[in-house]
């Protein structure tokens, strides 16, 4: 969302700059009794003085603007993924969230019997909420949780912070290239 906001702001800035420049150019064209450079003044005048507020095209435009506005509002008001996580090591110390998630996923992945793991860490109050999803037998859940908790303690997270581990059973692997003979 941060990147989208930044790119959209550049786009908005360029649109404002271009639109403003166009208005100035057209104003000069009208003042000097010249035909417009981009805008055909006659046809725009005709269109704007004959199109009514209740015309379906106008209504579609208005509804599109409203829906776009609502979508933008929702995008800005929902909780964003934090970029960094506060750590208890010292005041002003933070860890980059994505690197913590990758590191913890590697930790969970290194538990024998775990085939793949992904980790999501979010800020909750002053602490962290960790959710681990790992592929492996359900009995490995405790081992994965212990390994992740050990790393979290090393990274300066509160030991009481919640850690959820979801173990997903391994999918049967198709034996490609092997044909069973009867």
């Amino acid at each position: 969302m941060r990147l989208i906001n930044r790119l959209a702001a550049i786009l908005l800035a360029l649109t404002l700059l271009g639109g403003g420049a166009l208005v100035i150019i057209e104003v000069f064209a009208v003042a000097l009794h010249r035909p417009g450079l981009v805008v055909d003044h006659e046809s725009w005048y005709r269109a704007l003085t004959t199109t009514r507020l209740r015309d379906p095209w106008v209504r579609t435009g208005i509804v599109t603007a409203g829906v776009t506005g609502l979508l933008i509002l929702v995008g800005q008001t929902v909780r964003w993924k934090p970029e960094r996580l506060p750590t208890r090591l010292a005041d002003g110390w933070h860890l980059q969230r994505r690197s913590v998630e990758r590191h913890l996923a590697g930790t969970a992945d290194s538990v024998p019997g775990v085939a793949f793991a992904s980790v999501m860490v979010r800020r909750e109050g002053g602490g962290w909420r960790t959710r681990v999803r790992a592929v492996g037998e359900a009995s490995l859940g405790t081992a994965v949780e212990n390994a992740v908790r050990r790393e979290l303690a090393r990274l300066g997270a509160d030991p009481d912070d919640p850690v959820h581990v979801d173990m997903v059973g391994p999918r049967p692997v198709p034996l490609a290239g092997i044909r069973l003979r009867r």
Partner: protein
Amino acid sequence: MTNSSLRVLWTIVGLVLTTIGVVGLVASLGHLAGVDEDAPLIWSGLLRLWRAIEPWGLAILGALGLLLAWLGAHLLGRQLRPRRHPAMGDLDLRTVTGPAAGAAGLPPGTTRVRGACLVRGLERDLARDPQVRRASVVLAGTAADPELWIELQLGSRAALTTVRDHVSAAVGRFRATSGLVPGRLEVIARIDTSGPARVR
């Protein structure tokens, strides 16, 4: 521009567009008092006003165009500015050592220290610990109230408490060398997970 200021900007844009949508739809359906849904987009009242104030209408429109273009250029400039925290420039040592040094009667002339040199020195000092793979520092604020923003790239086996002590020691040395006492110290550490791949 910071992320939060962009968030405020887009919340305002969203609110404006939503208001246009709601009010426009109500007017278009003929439920808004004083607005005729059968009237054209440029209604007769607006045309009368335009003709009555001629040629000032054009001047107002031109001023509006100028305002829009200025807003666009300003926003673009703020987006393309490279740093969130403007780096501190060169330091005049008299401002660092404070009024006591001035009272002692300094000889004429000034001594300036490049802010970039101090920053590079701190970066090198931070990177001396093998657990720190890379360090980048921004020295912001003023000489009276400096701020230090440190970004560290750490190895995956780095012991964070040791790194913290190393950073405090390095900042202490920076303080002793430059005479600057950082009012704010922010450290963002990234754990580098790139390493030998696990063999399955």
